């Protein structure tokens, strides 16, 4: 999910602030780098299974941060703070899904 790069900008640009392309380029490079590290770690067998999973989780979380700050402008906006509520809800769901999936799947599925 964290690597998904869905951009759905549409409609008129926000009038209150204008961004140069710099922020987007930095964000784009950061997300590429994070993805590259994840792939390098996973494909090259540089770490043991447990620590690797943890590192990938952290990289995924960082990826979310990059998306939110560089592309979705969470720090901006007017009107009621819908996006903070949405973020809290999103955080709950993300952790619920990720952690509970680990919990559900941590049974011995290969009969030994």
């Amino acid at each position, binding site marked *: *999910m964290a690597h*998904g790069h*869905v951009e*759905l900008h*549409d*409609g008129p640009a926000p009038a209150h602030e204008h961004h140069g392309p710099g922020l987007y380029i930095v964000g784009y490079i950061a997300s590429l780098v994070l993805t590259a590290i994840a792939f390098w770690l996973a494909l090259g067998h540089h770490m043991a299974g447990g620590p690797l999973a943890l590192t990938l989780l952290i990289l995924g979380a960082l990826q979310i941060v990059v998306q939110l700050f560089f592309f979705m402008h969470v720090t901006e906006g007017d*009107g009621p703070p*819908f996006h903070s509520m949405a973020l809290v*809800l*999103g955080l709950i*769901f993300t952790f*619920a*899904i990720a952690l*509970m*999936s680990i*919990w*559900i*799947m941590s*049974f011995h*599925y*290969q009969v030994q």
Partner: protein
Amino acid sequence: MPDALRQFADTYLMWQEGPMIWISDVLILLTSIGIVATLTYFKKWKWLWREWLTTVDHKKIGIMYLIAALLMMFRGGADGLLMRTQLAAPGMHFLDAEHYDQIFTTHGTIMILFMAMPFIFAMFNIVVPLQIGARDVAFPYLNAISFWLFFFGALLFNISFVFGGSPDAGWFSYPPLSELQFDPGPGENFYLLALQISGIGSIATGINFLATILKMRAPGMTLMRMPLFTWSVVAACIVIIFAFPALTVALALLMLDRIVGTHFFTILHGGNPMMYINLFWVWGHPEVYIVVLPAFGIFSEVVATFSRKRVFGYSSMVASLILISVISYFVWAHHFFTMGAGADVNTFFAVASMAVGIPTGVKVFNWLFTMYRGRIRLNLPMLWTIAFVPCFALGGATGIMLAAAPADYQYHNSYFLIAHFHQVLIGGVVFGMLAGMYYWWPKMFGFKLDERIGRWAFWFFNIGFYVCFMPQYALGFMGMQRRMYTYPADMGWGTLNFISTVGAYLMGIGFVLIVAQVLYSIKYGERDLTGDPWDGRTLEWSLPSPVPHYNFAVIPTVTDRDYWWKLKEEGRTDELKPKPEDIQPIHMPKNSGRPFIMGVLFFVAGLGFVFNWYVLAVLGLLGVVVTLLARSFEYDDEYYIQPEEVEHVEAALGRL
């Protein structure tokens, strides 16, 4: 040459499969020729392109969703009837095992993703902007893209029937069965690509409507003054936004397994097929709430209108909607209790599943209390709503039985489960969408659907439903498992299966009657001249039917819940009629052909991936990128409707 042709026909057109496929080919060909000929004869191509294919108007997009949903209901229903025919008696040879597999797969996938989803999106599109006093959705262009991605996703899925072969691994296509080595045909790829393409559209719709409702309400319409249908759309959109990515990931990983040869879900190389099942239901369970929450919203509107009372317990209705949408994320493992994740996991998910019954129960009681001492009119929307209450209550009760994890080991994948989810999905979603269709039909088209034929359809469909599905509960207890294509006579299942088949055909007659009702009403239906045929309560009924394309000549200022009802009570309805001095130029988005073209390109790319024709796939995706770029450099995409034109339209409607 004939040899090559023959090989093509056998590989892609499946002509060795026999007369069923040939008949389908001929019918599809005749229908297509018929459509093309009619459009050409009446010189309607330009009209089709200008008015419909390029439209960004939410009302027209909603109507297109509605037509698509009804067509898909026909296809899915035909699949259902084929299955019931095969199961009518023991040891039938109407279908063979392979065809039966394909048919239950397409039946399930179509009914959930290509019937229920477009049906709720039809209601979103037609109703939400009108209820909140907006002129369109937040992102009209994106809305058109959503529709065309859904449309071409559905087309890709349906075309598998006559080109390449249908998917056959069940509507949730569990690995390892759906992995390449066990399911080598293109059918499974069709499934994956079609769902993926239409899934992009669904996520976009969720974002679009959440933004619309949060940002584009008329002045004075606070959140707690919103109509309950709009609230149900908020709840459904939250679920769509957070649930659909899980499906996208699950399908993408399975596609990588099949196309690139990764091992996410193959057990031998460290993968785990149960992870697919886990991810699928992380989406799959919230998905059933996505489709049923808008139905709850429709029932709330209908109950209040046809009881002439404001809805009982508005804030508890809102709270229960939101609560259902949050709890829906914590129940998914009840779809695989029998996996054996352990007692603590199963306990947690069993308790969470039962907890959903609480807010749902609150809603049911609120609907009943709304009806209590109301002046109930039994028009078609209300009829379907009243039928929904006992049907859904029974479905909910059997759901609680299934949610009890230890007992589920007995019911799992039996006909008891089949009967349960058909009861909640038909009793909840289909009844709800039909109620909504009857309710808002005059708003869409300017005439009512005929009550008399509608009542016949209602009774056929309802009686048919119980005759079809009640025996299946018993069959489940008697040990009949889902997906059996036949059964021996000595199991003693013959009688109940036959009754069930009779019920299915009664429902089929009900559907045919609905079609007849629509056709009859186009010519003879009662015209809606007031714009408020049901004596409604919310803003959409303050507008003429059908609604002019800019919706509101002047955006109203709302001071109350059920504002239109309040104005009617106080005799102030003239306040919502536009005054010439208030009419400003109206800012509207321009139509665009690009969403349609983008859909075509996604379809081409999808077809490329299905058959591993990578040149085609890359060309299609490149085309998508080009359309995206073209959009980025498009600056002239909006226009103003001048006040004179608005005045002209409003005067013609007798509102000035």
